[in-house]
């Protein structure tokens, strides 16, 4: 449900960057979305089509890179993807860890004409 606000914010950022570059059209937008954010790519695509109408970003292709929730074990130092219902280190079974990936939510790059 937060996808509407997130897509609007993303579009504003993209349009601002395109204008700064003096571009008239945005062809592609590369986005990085972490698993932990709960942002649904398909939903962003749906809102984007609707919100971008009449802007230089209308018709732009959205390219999503989805990053998994990853952690570093505070005991053995190894990195791993967090399990769905089991938050223990698969190497040493510790449950003391630091989240190091999965919170990403940013525009990586845009292609403009």
């Amino acid at each position, binding site marked *: *449900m937060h996808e509407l606000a997130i897509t609007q914010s993303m579009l504003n*950022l993209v349009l601002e960057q395109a204008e700064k570059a003096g571009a008239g059209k945005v062809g592609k937008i590369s986005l990085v979305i972490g698993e932990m954010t*709960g942002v649904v790519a398909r939903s962003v695509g749906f809102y984007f089509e609707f919100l971008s109408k009449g802007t230089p970003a209308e018709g732009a292709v959205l390219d999503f890179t989805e990053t998994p929730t990853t952690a570093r074990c505070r005991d053995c130092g190894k990195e791993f993807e967090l399990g769905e219902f089991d938050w*223990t280190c698969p190497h040493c079974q510790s449950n003391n860890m630091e989240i190091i990936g999965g919170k990403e939510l940013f525009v990586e790059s845009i292609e403009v004409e």
Partner: protein
Amino acid sequence: MEIKVVKDILGANDQIARKNRQLFDKNRVFVVNVMASPGAGKTSVIMETIKRLKGKTRLGVVEGDISSSLDAEAISKEDVPVVQINTGGECHLDANMTAIALGDLPLKDIDLLLIENVGNLVCPAEFSLGENLRILIASTPEGDDKPFKYPLMFHEADVVLINKIDLLPYVKFNVDAFSKTIRGINRKVKIFPVSCTTGEGIEEWVSWLLGRMGKD
């Protein structure tokens, strides 16, 4: 032509949140963002906190709801300044809505501002309001598997209140396992088991909060 951007999508929200924080700091207001799923007890925790802190600190409340002002009306009976934000369908409060609501509050006369977010365990975690403290209320009937389903919320919380512990004999909720799961990914978190019905644990939470206010 490709342009490298590498900018946070919610950067604009974060910028407004920083401005809110400056305003809070200038007026020496300590701000708590109260988050939970619907029915976990956000309003009850706010009411219990108000009852115990009245006379000890000057309070204010922002009530965020998709619609209605039922909660704001209940709180205004406690003679505390309260502002209602109706998000009109949005599932979370954001920094801008908060900034607008702040205009209707006498910030100079408030030491502790409690902001009740919209009932939701996903979206509010993304949107900073400029708060000093993020608290998450998890109630025992919701089950103890919530951290696995909403990891971001549990990762971001400074405090987790386990509410409705008076119902523990009747529901499947293991307080120790639940706390251990959260602490595994969130070392700084403070956890308080409470019941707004019996009052158990509320004093501990409120005393801790008062102590924490002095530190920011």
